[in-house]
């Protein structure tokens, strides 16, 4: 089975409603956990940006904003072919800088910060074919629970959640292969549909990824490409009267490069960097992720 840490990507979760969202792919992958086995990861995701992609796809400046998520990700095989997933940002921090006058040195707009839990994903993945299949396929249902804070701060522009309930249905397909006797790799693709509540537009998500393992399959290099398209069928600033933060219709094509290393047994560390190749209404800066993981299958 392909190493399951490929599934432990930081899910953007609440960031999806943040105007300056940081693209990051949650590529579930078609590989399910065997019964009683699991994969667990503790990671730190962050992005600090002073530019964003506008609705015209161009970049404009904004007050420097930071988003930090400390996340527990877990996969566990309930029974063979059925895997439960959890993505829980138990500490989410969002801050904006002070705006200071160059002329007077006066703080014109004080910076603010919010620390809270973030929106959390609960999912179930079902393997459509038998474990060990050469071309595994899986169907996942992921529920994004809006338990974060969707609006805080003087301007309501700090948030650790979007206040809406995601329902993502996703199909995954993949294939693993050997590269010589001590190396292996995989390729996978997914397509999903995300239904969203509270006036948010639905999304179609597609992506591909590939990984190669070296050093006796202890060191993995992974490249991911993802594309999220908004159906733009939700509300806009024109159709809502709320003054709370509300950024909708975000789109992007993103890449993520990751390296992960099994230090001893199933324990390992990983590091990833990602960014957007094109986007609308999301952050224009690289995002980073570092983590430690435990893979019961290794």
């Amino acid at each position, binding site marked *: 089975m392909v190493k399951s840490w490929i599934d432990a990507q930081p899910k953007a979760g609440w960031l999806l409603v943040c105007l300056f969202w940081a693209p990051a792919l949650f590529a579930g992958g078609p590989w399910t956990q065997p019964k009683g086995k699991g994969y667990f990861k503790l990671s730190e995701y962050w992005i600090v940006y002073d530019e964003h992609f506008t609705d015209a796809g161009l970049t404009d400046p904004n007050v420097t904003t930071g988003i930090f998520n400390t996340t527990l990700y877990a996969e566990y095989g309930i029974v063979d072919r059925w895997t439960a997933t959890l993505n829980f940002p138990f500490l989410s921090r969002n801050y904006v800088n002070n705006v200071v006058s160059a002329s007077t040195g006066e703080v014109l707009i004080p910076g603010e*910060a919010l620390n809270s839990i973030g929106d959390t994903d609960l999912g179930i993945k079902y393997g459509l074919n038998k474990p060990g299949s050469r071309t595994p396929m899986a169907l996942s249902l992921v529920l994004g629970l809006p338990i974060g804070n969707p609006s805080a701060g003087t301007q309501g522009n700090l948030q650790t959640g979007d206040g809406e309930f995601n329902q993502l249905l996703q199909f995954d397909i993949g294939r693993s292969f050997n590269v010589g006797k001590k190396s292996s790799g995989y390729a996978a693709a997914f397509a999903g549909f995300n239904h969203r509540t509270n006036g948010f537009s639905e999304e179609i998500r597609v992506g591909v990824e590939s990984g190669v393992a070296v050093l006796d399959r202890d060191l993995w290099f992974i490249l991911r490409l993802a594309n999220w398209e908004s159906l733009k069928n939700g509300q806009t600033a024109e159709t809502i009267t709320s003054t709370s933060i509300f950024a909708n219709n975000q789109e992007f094509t993103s890449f993520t490069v990751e390296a992960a290393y099994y230090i001893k047994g199933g324990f390992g560390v990983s590091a990833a960097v990602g960014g957007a190749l094109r986007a609308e209404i999301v952050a224009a800066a690289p995002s980073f992720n570092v983590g430690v993981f435990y893979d019961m299958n290794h």
Partner: protein
Amino acid sequence: MKYLLFLSLTAVLAAGCIGDDVIQDAVDPELRITNPLDSLGLGSSHQFDAQYFNGVGQPEPAVTTWSSSDPAVVSITEEGLATALQEGGVTLTAVAVTPEGSINTALALGVGTTTVAPTSFRTGVIRTTSSYLLEGDFELHDIGGGNLELRIADDYAASTSLPGLYVYLTNNPGISVGALEIGRVTDFSGAHTYTIAGAGLQDYAFVLYYCKPFNVKVGDGEIMD
């Protein structure tokens, strides 16, 4: 490895602290006559007022002294009380002493049979200063009683992507701080009107569109005479 983890954690925590974004908010200081006239009726008097706006566009008190290019046509006291004495034309000059030095402004004033005030409205063109759509013409009308009306023309259009887009009157188009907040934008195309209480026609130099939640300037329009 543990040192690497420690350094990484320290770097992440440091990056998570609120820092400073320095914004270039300087504008040219200005001394503005707030109740100008086109002409002053023969034998009539008018108290002129001027307001000093500092290098960030904020009003500041300043001692202002007035003078006339031809006191035989229009006399004026140092405090700005002008009287039309004979037909003709003059240039009135106001000089303000500020902490940064002196600044002056001038007004061409004719003397006629009646006193004529400028038109009761000013105009301008809204333009985007971002890559968000924002365009259209506007007129700023004095509707009396210390109230203004900002009339946005039919050719107006604005992006609906930004939450919390607000419109302001300001003397510093770079920042919303210190500006007069008119209200949240709820019209994104076509003609519409805002009523503004407690403001004079000459009190502000720009219309400003600003996304308040994200501290992003979207566009502005200079208010022209």
